[in-house]
């Protein structure tokens, strides 16, 4: 096994992690500020991917599509927040789960009705379609590297937003004391809508970026959503830093597990068995990691409200 192959897998893991971070950042922000668990976050991811695919197909420009994905997901998020979500802040988690589960059904079926069950295709923009040479002689997809770059930019941007802007100050105030922020005269309804739309836009961005690698179809957001849950459970709900570290951890462990476990098991087992057992165990690996972390730290690595 060459080191180039391992570098490639690690980068793939980081890229998956970055995608998860875009999802998890919004989820964890929404939970931290509004105390809401949003299952329909995966639907916003799907909205972003469809918006990008449709606009890119109509205009021929991936970049316009990307802008459309941000706008569409943010708009869908804002509408969702105003019509449904804001009625849920004072409710218990069961109601939040059910209502947002209902939103998934509505979004999925409406999308299926509009676009049909067949996947749409979205091409990687030509400017990013090549490969780059890495030190050590490996080649790596430029597009994947670009996604990692986007993740770093978003993480830095979120950090600056939260620690250095007026909006960020209000978000932090909202996390620590919801009544206080009302007393400060901040329009809390607008703040919540903005935070929700921001989270939605990040999910939409993730959907568009991944949509170009894979296919754009109904239900594409759900597996990512569940992985994002694992990420924020590991990272600590409400913590952006935890989301970033959790996301990279989950991405790398998942990718490397699928790659390395079958290889490792070949030492003990015949190749065909090693492949199937390796694949089965690798599919469970991140959940095992999650269970181990929870056994030691039930509130996650960076619990915000511990």
């Amino acid at each position, binding site marked *: 096994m060459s080191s180039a192959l391992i570098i490639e897998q690690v980068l793939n893991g980081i890229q998956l992690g970055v995608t998860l971070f875009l999802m998890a950042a919004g989820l964890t922000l929404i*939970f931290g500020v509004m105390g809401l*668990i949003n299952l329909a976050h995966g639907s916003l991811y799907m909205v972003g991917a469809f918006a990008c695919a449709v606009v890119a197909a109509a205009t021929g420009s991936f970049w316009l599509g990307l802008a459309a994905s941000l706008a569409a997901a943010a708009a869908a998020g804002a509408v969702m927040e105003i019509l*449904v979500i804001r*009625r849920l802040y004072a409710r218990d*988690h*069961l*109601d939040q*789960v*059910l*209502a947002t*589960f*209902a*939103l*998934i*059904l*509505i979004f*999925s*079926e*409406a999308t*299926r*009705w509009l676009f049909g069950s067949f996947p749409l295709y979205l091409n990687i923009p030509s400017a990013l379609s090549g490969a780059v040479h890495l030190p050590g002689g490996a080649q790596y997809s430029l597009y994947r590297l670009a996604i990692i770059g986007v993740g770093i930019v978003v993480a830095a941007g979120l950090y600056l937003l939260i620690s250095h802007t007026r909006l960020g100050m209000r978000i932090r105030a909202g996390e620590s004391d919801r009544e206080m922020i009302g007393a400060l005269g901040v329009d809390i309804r607008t703040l919540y809508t903005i935070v929700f739309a921001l989270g939605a836009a990040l999910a939409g961005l993730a959907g568009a970026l991944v949509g170009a690698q894979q296919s754009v179809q109904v239900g594409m957001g*759900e597996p990512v959503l*569940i992985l994002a*849950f*694992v990420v*924020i*459970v590991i990272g600590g*709900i409400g913590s952006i830093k935890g989301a970033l570290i959790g996301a990279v951890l989950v991405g790398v462990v998942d990718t490397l597990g699928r790659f390395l476990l079958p290889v490792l098991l070949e030492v003990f087992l015949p190749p065909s068995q090693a492949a*199937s057992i390796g*694949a*089965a165990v*690798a*599919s*469970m690996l991140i*959940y*095992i990691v*999650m*269970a181990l972390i*929870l*056994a030691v730290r*039930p*509130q*996650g690595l960076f619990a915000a409200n511990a």
Partner: protein
Amino acid sequence: MTRERTVNLVLLLLVPAAALAAQAIGETFYVTLATRIAILALAATGLNIALGLGGLVSFGHAAFFGIGGYAAGILATHAFNQEPLLFGLPGSKQMLVIWLTSLVASGLVAAVIGAISLRTSGVYFIMITLAFAQMIYYFAISWPAYGGEDGLSLYVRNSFPGLNTLDPMTFFLICYGLLVLGLLVFATLRASRFGTALQASRQNPTRVAAVGITPYRIRLVAFILSGMVTAIAGALYADLNRFVSPSMLSWHMSGELIVLIILGGTGRLFGPLAGAILYILFEFVLGGLTESWQLFLGLILLGVVLFARGGLIGLLAGKERHG
């Protein structure tokens, strides 16, 4: 008799009456529909122990439903192929053996998942139970021995001593009998010391600890019992469809089980049955009108959550009273 009791009695008699009527006019399709109602209601009754009594919002009960289903599928496959299963033990086509296996397997898995998940609460608990169920789902998909993604077919419905399980009405009655048993288990638990401590742990865990009862242990046992009841329903579901697949383990299944309880009425003995009747009716009526019936299910569910917290039974019978 209180109004809730009247509603319960009507619900209890409604499904068998419909099944018998369908049988009488030769429409066995409706008997199968009634059987699905009974099985889903049983699965949700299991979940109702954790969710309704204990306030434990498990978003991973599909795991137990699927484990029951796979227990039936795997035992039947080994019996059919005459290959030993584990430690030289043979497979089985006997429902009683399958049910027992489902109970043991789901109980063990629930003990592990519960022991870890119950260290947390609130949103963490919801997400962690979801994640563990998803882990089992992915395991079922990537483990090729029992069909992987394609699932596993049962060649013939499993048997029950002295009964012809291939007859739809007989199989319905088996399922309905187990549902009634499940409802009895729920009602007995609810009135018992254990149920008192469990319900009090939902209402106020601090109070429970202050009178010398550890909520964690109560909840763990409730979670295990809850998973076991749901697993029996899973075994029946496999026998109904003569097929098991990872979709029984999917998170949509977990969500649907919660939906059944809420449609019927949270915390009510007959909530799951009322919910299952409504759900299957929606699926049948709306599904006949449009392929996008889940869109309307979503809208109805949203309406119930936002505006009609008591569900169907709340609507019919009014507010709940406790002892």
